[in-house]
């Protein structure tokens, strides 16, 4: 039996009971949408409109609608792709890596973080597909036989690896997320009053009853999914970085890229998780579930990964000098002092300096400061990808081919549009799905109970029925402690 320390701080505050958890989390699913949610959805839908318009222009008139030229063939599109994929990584880190490390505080945030992963990957996938110019031929990326003969895909290309990595990552994350949602859908189903709600949540919950055998298998499945997702998430950004690292462009052709990209991905992902969680906890009144302790812990991860990214920036510079390769040296000097110096300055100050403020305890526990920092980090990580992609491409080996890149309105529109797409999906998720994993949160409610469990395993000889160790007695207003079956329905 696991030893439970009596000195631990509770992970969920206000002495919630199991029923309180159900009530608090199901509330936003069952209640009518509130005005703030409607307002936010309105803004997100406007941005989604911008997305559809920009995509229409891109498809109708072609990639010429973007600011690309012969020298800078990859710019905002790939910047946005890497940015979104990176954001997605924090969700898998929380749901898989922290599960393997038994970080129980993850329970309150993993559901929303996984949703963020899935929506971020959807946004990311838009860019390579649109950049193809003819997205209706997107199936060319799969190893299907060519109509003229058996010409297959090129398995030596990192761009093809990307196809496999991103599609595996997306489907695995989706399945992991959905399997975790099934028991919570069952809770909503058993509380549902309306016909449509009953039907839809019954379909979604796949007939889950909470049987002991099912839970046993469910835990096995979660553990193995976490086990395979952990190397998967590392491989995805490694492969994304190889899109650059296997080329011969100065500034890209470096072996440090895989770890550097993975650290950057987790860094930006945690910043986005913080941004979303800080909003969610206020809008849905989840302060007891997503506590200041959670915010401080996420801040610490952000600081550590931010520092790794900082070290990577400096290492790149050192290696450029140490390599004695003229082109490599110029690429880095040009980044810092060339025409895009402002992007470099933005990247350095947002990513290297700003997370260092988290060393100060008051900032780590401050909601306002955390929110500001998380936005700054998101901006900084976008600049990082812009710096890597555009400044490396715009001046490489041949000075006669040097060029500048400036985005068009459509470039901006597609980018801002994907933010709209992301928030539309996230807001719909937050309204119709439980934003916190109720079943998992219930397992950690008694994390700190002093007179903890008396059960020491099957047939241990201690056969005395224990007292009820609930932190506080069942005290939900209007529901008696031994309520009859279907009490929720009788209260109508």
């Amino acid at each position, binding site marked *: 039996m696991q030893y439970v320390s009596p000195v631990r701080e509770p992970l969920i505050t206000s002495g919630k009971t199991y029923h309180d958890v159900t009530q608090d989390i199901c509330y936003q699913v069952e209640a009518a949408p509130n005005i703030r949610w409607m307002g936010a959805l309105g803004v997100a839908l406007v941005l989604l409109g911008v997305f559809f318009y920009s995509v229409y222009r891109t498809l109708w008139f072609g990639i010429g609608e973007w600011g690309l030229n012969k020298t800078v063939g990859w710019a905002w599109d790939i910047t946005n792709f890497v940015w979104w994929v990176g954001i997605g990584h924090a969700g898998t880190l929380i749901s898989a890596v922290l599960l393997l490390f038994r970080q129980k505080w993850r329970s309150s945030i993993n559901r929303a973080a996984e949703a963020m992963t899935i929506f971020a990957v959807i946004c990311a996938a838009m860019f390579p597909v649109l950049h193809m110019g003819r997205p209706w031929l997107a199936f060319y990326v799969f190893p299907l036989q060519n109509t003229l003969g058996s010409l297959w895909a090129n398995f030596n290309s990192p761009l093809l690896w990307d196809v496999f990595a991103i599609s595996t990552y997306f489907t695995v994350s989706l399945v992991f997320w959905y399997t975790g949602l099934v028991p919570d859908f069952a809770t909503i189903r058993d509380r549902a009053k309306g016909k449509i709600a009953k039907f839809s949540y019954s*379909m979604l919950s796949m007939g889950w009853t909470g049987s002991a055998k099912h839970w046993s*298998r469910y835990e096995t499945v979660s553990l193995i999914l976490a086990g*395979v997702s952990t190397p998967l998430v590392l491989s995805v950004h490694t492969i994304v970085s190889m899109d650059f690292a296997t080329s011969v462009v100065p500034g890209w052709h470096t072996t440090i890229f895989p770890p550097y990209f993975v650290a950057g991905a987790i860094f930006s992902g945690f910043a986005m998780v913080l941004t979303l969680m800080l909003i969610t906890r206020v809008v849905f009144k989840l302060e007891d579930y997503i506590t200041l302790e959670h915010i401080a812990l996420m801040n610490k991860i952000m600081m550590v990964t931010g520092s790794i990214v900082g070290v990577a920036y400096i290492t790149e510079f050192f290696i450029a000098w140490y390599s004695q390769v003229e082109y490599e040296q110029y690429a880095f000097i040009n980044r810092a002092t060339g025409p895009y110096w402002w992007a470099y300055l933005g990247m350095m100050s947002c990513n290297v300096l700003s997370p260092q403020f988290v060393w100060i305890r008051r900032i780590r526990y401050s909601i306002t400061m955390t929110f500001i920092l998380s936005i700054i980090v998101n901006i900084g990580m976008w600049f990082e990808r812009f710096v890597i992609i555009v400044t490396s491409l715009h001046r490489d080996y041949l000075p006669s081919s040097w060029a500048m890149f400036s985005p068009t309105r459509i470039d901006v529109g597609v980018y801002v549009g994907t933010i709209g797409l992301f928030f539309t999906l996230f807001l719909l998720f937050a309204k119709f799905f439980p934003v916190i994993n109720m079943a998992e949160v219930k397992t950690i409610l008694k994390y700190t109970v002093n007179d903890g469990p008396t059960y020491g395993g099957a047939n241990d000889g201690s056969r005395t029925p224990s007292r009820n160790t609930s932190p506080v007695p069942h005290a939900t207003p209007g529901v008696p402690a031994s309520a009859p079956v279907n009490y929720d329905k009788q209260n109508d």
Partner: protein
Amino acid sequence: MTSPALTAAPVSTAPAASSSTKRFALGIFDDEDTLLHAVDNVRAAGVKIYDVFSPYPVHGIDDALGIERSRLPIAAFFYGMCGLAFALWMQIYMLGFDWPMIIGGKPNIALPAFIPVSFELTVFFTCHGMVITFYTISKLYPRFKTPVLDVRSTDDKFVMAILLDEQSSQMPQLTQLLRENGASEVNQKEMTKF
């Protein structure tokens, strides 16, 4: 605590109401710790527990109920190996035999370059194979209506279900046994489809 009436149910003489109707005694518990002790004691009394329904995974209940360790990890490993074999076969066959092309002067079968796709497909097969197996063997699929013994078992109650015979003759003894072991209520429920 063991009584002969519990272990040997009397032979039924009345005609069955419906062959698919099942009767359950439901012991409702408020706490996982009480439940675990109760599972031990009820089994020690010689009563067969049909199933236990809980709002979250109760650790230790597998051992208490005698549920065998899941063999899903073995299945997962098998699926992973299938994925790896498929990925290697696909890449070697396509680039090495079916349509060999010289790409950057590299060998046709460039195994180091095949690692990423092989890894991703291993993970893909492991995950989806295992999850499909999980849903299939657990008989979990979308349903119009889900039969539940007690709706509170997905909220805050732990429900121990014991199958009764057609006259529910064990009910009084079971009620007493469950009450003694900390059940906050004991109910009887009939299910036509379960």
